[in-house]
């Protein structure tokens, strides 16, 4: 992710540029989060005198990584703003009347024990779906069924860009009582969808690409907020982040397997597999790495001397690499969503049955989940792969940063969105800040452990913790204070 951010903004921000030169040195050493992003180039760096940099490296790594993380703040915050604004203004997204097929237990019991039990069951079902999809993806990849994966990703992003956008638009228009005719609606959807597909899966301006990714992430989290029952949502958040941990850190974790396979084949990670948010990042990182790797001395020199111009320099050096990586990354958006066969028929039924967009829910959820999980895995894989490529010996430290992909963002948004759906701004802000803090902590952990870490769990844990503490402790406390007219 950082890469993406950095690349995009490198021109503008001198700091990031500074970091880059160091990066070269760092990459070789154990990489902190920062390294991961640049690792590709790193291998080449071997020739460079690292020793000089080593001491500085650690500091630089931290700084560099910090910048990455801080740059992550922007997309994450944007997403959250979209979600919070939508949730607090449009009632449609806060009412859960229909459930996904994945969550058959409705949580309608009045006893909280029963509801918690239902929630856990629901979450486990969802988790198994995610795992199954991940396994399917890995098998497909192992069997080199690239076409299937591509189609799958394409379909999922298409669904999001058209159908769910349509739903969203409908609700927004309804909320603000705006009239619209079918002709302009068709034109808007067609334009939005096609340009989105082109940007995500093919070539498009970086900014637009990022905006589409953010939008997709926000849309997905809105869908989850709408269709998952209350307690299930919390449990699912926790379970998925644990799964993230396992998939990334486990020696036989699915993400690892994917990355390793890609390495064995000596090919870039399957574009579709790469997470969309990562895409941007990965693209950037790829570019950097490529630049450095092919022409190490030149690239390095360039980076160091003109960190600012990196972007410019990259294009020239990197041209080839740049082109390829983006392609890879771009397809990713859709990646996670794996349309289940099961879900489709059900969706259709519902669609026919229900006039509104509600129909798509089940499929959307499944896909979303799948997407998220897949995306994450893909991101991680990509990251890992990238890192691995550059530094074969090192596990990719940067992966964690990069990993913070759309799915992660989505989850965080879900959290904040859910919090805001209770209409308490204190809680909303607490969660928002908690998630950002979680991001920072992840960065620090990266620096400490120098190992690939999933970015999600810490943020989510923090978010959950803050949510429950503020809503159960702080808010009643402040209410008491207000009622009693006590000022602190």
């Amino acid at each position, binding site marked *: 992710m950082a890469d993406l951010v950095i690349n995009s903004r490198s021109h503008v921000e001198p700091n990031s540029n500074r970091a880059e030169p160091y990066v070269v040195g760092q990459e070789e050493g154990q990489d902190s989060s920062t390294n991961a992003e640049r690792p590709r180039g790193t291998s080449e760096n071997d020739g460079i005198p690292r020793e000089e940099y080593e001491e500085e490296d650690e500091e630089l790594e931290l700084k560099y990584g910090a910048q990455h993380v801080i740059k992550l703040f922007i997309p994450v915050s944007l997403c959250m703003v979209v979600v919070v604004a939508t949730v607090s203004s449009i009632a449609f997204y806060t009412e859960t009347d229909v459930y996904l097929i994945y969550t058959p237990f409705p949580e309608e019991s009045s006893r909280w024990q029963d509801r918690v039990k239902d929630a856990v069951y629901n979450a486990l079902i969802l988790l198994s779906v995610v795992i199954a999809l991940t396994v399917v993806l890995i098998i497909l990849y192992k069997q080199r069924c690239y076409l299937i994966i591509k189609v799958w990703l394409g379909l999922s992003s298409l669904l999001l860009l058209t159908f769910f956008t349509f739903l969203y638009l409908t609700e927004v228009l309804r909320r603000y009582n705006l009239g619209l005719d079918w002709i302009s609606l068709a034109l808007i959807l067609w334009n939005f969808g096609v*340009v989105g597909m082109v940007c995500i899966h093919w070539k498009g301006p970086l900014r637009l690409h990022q905006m589409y990714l953010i939008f997709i992430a926000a849309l997905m989290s809105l869908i989850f907020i709408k269709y998952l029952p209350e307690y299930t949502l919390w449990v699912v958040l926790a379970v998925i982040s644990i799964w993230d941990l396992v998939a990334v850190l486990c020696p036989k974790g699915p993400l690892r397997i994917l990355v390793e396979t890609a390495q064995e084949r000596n090919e870039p990670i399957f574009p579709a597999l790469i997470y969309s948010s990562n895409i941007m990042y990965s693209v950037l990182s790829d*570019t950097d790495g490529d630049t450095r790797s092919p022409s190490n001395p030149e690239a390095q020199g360039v980076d160091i001397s003109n960190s600012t111009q990196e972007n410019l320099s990259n294009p020239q050096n990197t041209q080839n690499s740049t082109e390829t990586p983006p392609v890879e990354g771009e397809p990713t958006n859709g990646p996670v969503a794996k349309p289940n066969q099961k879900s489709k028929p059900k969706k259709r039924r519902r669609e026919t049955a229900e006039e509104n967009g509600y129909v798509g829910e089940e499929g959307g959820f499944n896909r979303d989940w799948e997407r998220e999980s897949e995306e994450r895995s893909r991101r991680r894989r990509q990251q890992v792969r990238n890192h691995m490529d550059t530094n074969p010996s090192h596990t990719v430290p940067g992966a964690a940063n990069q990993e913070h992909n759309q799915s992660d963002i989505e989850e965080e948004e879900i959290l904040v969105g859910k919090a805001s759906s209770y209409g308490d701004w204190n809680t909303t802000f607490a969660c928002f800040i908690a998630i950002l803090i979680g991001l920072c902590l992840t960065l620090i952990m990266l620096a400490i452990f120098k190992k690939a870490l999933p970015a999600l769990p810490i943020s989510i844990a923090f978010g959950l913790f803050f949510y429950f503490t503020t809503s159960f402790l702080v808010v009643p406390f402040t209410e008491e204070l207000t009622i009693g007219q006590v000022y602190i």
Partner: protein
Amino acid sequence: MRIESLQNSEKLNLCRKYFLAGFALLPFMWAVNAVWFFKEAFIVPTYAEQKKIRTYVIISALGALLWLGGIITWILVFQKYRSEWGVLGDNLSFIIPKGIA
């Protein structure tokens, strides 16, 4: 993806594809093309393919503006006369605002 990283021929190719795609009722594509390649077309020091890129950018921008104007007029007309059109207006409506004649 950044166009600066592309070779000139590739830039032209990309710009051309965006331009052609715009004819499929995709004014947004044109708008993106115009904005995206504006720098390439007018600011960057000249190179061989720039002239063509410039034409594409200009036509794209004009097309996008034309479309924008057209859409705005259509929406204004529709909003104004929807109720007068009766059944036709209702049939054309995706959402009919409540409480407005």
